[in-house]
């Protein structure tokens, strides 16, 4: 009997990770990877930066070439070949050579599906016009990059305001192209909460990227030469000589469905925690397969490079069969992105998700300095923390700012993964020296504010609820000094500096709700304590202060 045959369909992140890990665990395996692409193991997440010329040459994106896999691991990678049918009874895969058209047969003992996901093409008039592109593969990105290099693009429309769409928009804008992002959902970054996403929208507007959220594209309009000339939203006709479709992706499951592999509730391939499908000997990893949310234990589909590498590695170990089987514990849907100088990150449940799931939700929005305020280069970052009031467990977090957000989000990932309460989060012995952090880190400050809120020491008003409150008669009182108020204020607010609050208290109406605001929340909290001592009852604080306010100031 020859070596055990492992066949892997798909050669980007999860497929090549499974192959390489299996080979390292068990060098005696006969491993073959099939991919319909002409590239293998490329940095798909790097494509927006390649378009933006941050990454100059195509080869910089290629992690390993087919011959590297052969030389380093003895893995045979066959490119330009498309698997067309799985025959589970015969343990055989039929595949079509895309160059010659011939059909080839590949026998296997174990099969891994790493078929990935494909861009969703909205069913609209004009999607087949020239210069309407998707950016999923290296070739597609090169096509966009060539158009830019030939100076054929002045106006671009990106359809879809998810992470990739926004990264593409940033990179197009950096190359001097007037860029508009059209998003169907009420705000960009749909998995994020609106209070965070709207701040990002305001930031993008400052960077002269037009964002049209809650807007559907109706059709693409021919420029008269077979290429796109404009995008119609019904209300507007947006000039565009390049359209990038980034309206999400769909799992590639046709091959699996055709041979009887079951899908889960999300529409991706259902797998157990060992990455096995319902058919014995067939695994599914990466973007084509489902995951489990670590908090809710529900099936979820997060097509992320980080998750693909994790599931690929688990499959590789289990395929090798040389030791104990390993499992995927679950994921949190963690994400991080950079747009110009703004960094944005999320993990766990959003406030919206947590409420929909029936948690007794509490949230805070807390700006704080990422490093000692006096240390050059320090920046304010804003942490939104979401906890369950009953168990005090941390459910999620969202962080944005020009400073370090990746470290604090990873602290939250760790805390949530280990089931930490907000009290435990507050007590973590985090590293501190001025160039790195503050004596009480942004995470600890957010946790402490949350503990104060849970203890009933203050009530907060979220920025999204402010207008409704003011329309219902609430007074918005800005307690910063007059000079700060002069520079920037929230429309409709009045200014009573904290230090003059006592002497000017008669200007406040005890019958009306009073919402206090300052730059980050500290002075507003001090003002709240003072007013409560003076017998005011309906007093609260604007969460996140002026710093995190997602709407126009004046």
């Amino acid at each position, binding site marked *: 009997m020859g070596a055990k045959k492992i066949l892997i369909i798909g050669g980007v992140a999860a497929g090549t990770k499974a192959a390489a890990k299996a080979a390292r665990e068990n060098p005696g395996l006969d491993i073959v990877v099939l991919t319909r692409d002409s590239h293998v193991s490329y940095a798909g997440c790097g494509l927006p930066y390649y378009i933006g010329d941050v990454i100059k040459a195509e080869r910089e994106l290629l992690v390993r070439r087919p011959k590297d896999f052969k030389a380093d691991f003895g893995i045979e990678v066959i490119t330009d070949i498309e698997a067309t049918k799985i025959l589970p009874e015969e343990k055989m895969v039929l595949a079509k050579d895309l160059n010659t058209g011939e059909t080839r047969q590949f026998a296997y003992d174990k099969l891994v599906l790493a078929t990935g996901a494909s861009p969703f093409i909205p069913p609209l008039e004009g999607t087949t016009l020239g210069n309407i592109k998707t950016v999923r593969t290296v070739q597609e990105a090169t096509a966009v990059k060539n158009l830019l290099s030939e100076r054929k693009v002045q106006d671009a429309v990106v359809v879809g305001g998810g992470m990739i769409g926004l990264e593409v928009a940033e990179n197009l804008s950096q190359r001097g192209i007037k860029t508009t992002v059209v998003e169907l959902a009420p705000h960009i970054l749909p998995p994020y909460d609106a209070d965070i996403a709207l701040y990002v929208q305001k930031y993008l507007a400052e960077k002269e990227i037009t964002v049209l959220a809650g807007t559907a594209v109706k059709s693409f309009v021919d420029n008269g030469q077979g290429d796109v000339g404009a995008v119609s939203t019904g209300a507007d006709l947006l000039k565009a000589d390049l359209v990038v479709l980034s309206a999400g992706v769909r799992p590639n499951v046709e091959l699996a469905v055709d041979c009887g592999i079951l899908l889960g509730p999300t529409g991706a391939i259902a797998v157990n925690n060992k990455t096995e499908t319902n058919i014995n000997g067939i695994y599914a990893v990466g973007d084509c397969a489902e995951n489990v949310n670590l908090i809710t234990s529900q099936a979820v589909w997060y097509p992320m490079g980080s998750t693909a590498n994790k599931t690929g590695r688990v499959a590789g170990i289990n395929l090798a069969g040389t030791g104990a089987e390993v499992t995927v514990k679950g994921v949190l849907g963690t994400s991080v992105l950079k747009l110009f100088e703004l960094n944005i990150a999320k993990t766990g449940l959003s406030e919206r998700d947590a409420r929909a799931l029936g948690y007794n939700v509490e949230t805070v929005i807390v700006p704080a300095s990422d490093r000692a305020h*006096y*240390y*050059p280069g320090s920046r304010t970052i804003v942490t939104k923390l979401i906890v369950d009031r009953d168990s005090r467990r941390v459910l999620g977090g969202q962080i944005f700012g020009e400073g370090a957000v990746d470290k604090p989000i990873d602290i939250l990932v760790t805390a949530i993964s280990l089931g930490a309460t907000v009290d435990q989060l507050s007590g973590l012995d985090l590293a501190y020296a001025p160039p790195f952090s503050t004596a009480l880190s942004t995470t600890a400050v957010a946790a402490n504010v949350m503990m104060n809120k849970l203890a009933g020491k203050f009530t907060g008003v979220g920025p999204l609820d402010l207008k409704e409150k003011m329309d219902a008669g609430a007074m918005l009182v800005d307690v910063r000094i007059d000079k700060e108020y002069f*520079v920037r204020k929230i429309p409709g607010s009045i200014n009573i500096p904290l230090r003059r609050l006592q002497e000017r208290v008669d200007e406040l109406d005890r019958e009306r709700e009073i919402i206090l605001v300052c730059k980050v929340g500290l002075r507003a909290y001090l003002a709240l304590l003072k007013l409560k001592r003076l017998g005011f009852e309906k007093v609260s604080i604007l969460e996140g202060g002026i710093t995190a306010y997602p709407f126009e100031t004046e």
Partner: protein
Amino acid sequence: MAEKFINARGMQCPGPIVQLFKEAQNCAPGDILCIEVTDHGFKKDIAAWCKKTKNELLSLEDDGGVIRARIKKG
């Protein structure tokens, strides 16, 4: 024409903007004010301040985390 330097490094809000208001009062039209700040939020504040006070922002640079603004008193 005088040139005035303000070291507002290490000051947190509202320190830098208070310093600026104070010093600007003592300047004659055409005088130059140069202020150095480590509070990054100042970048946005200074642009808004100049616009509202009709002073001219000559330059705004970020030198390794130190924000340096040069302003001509209007």
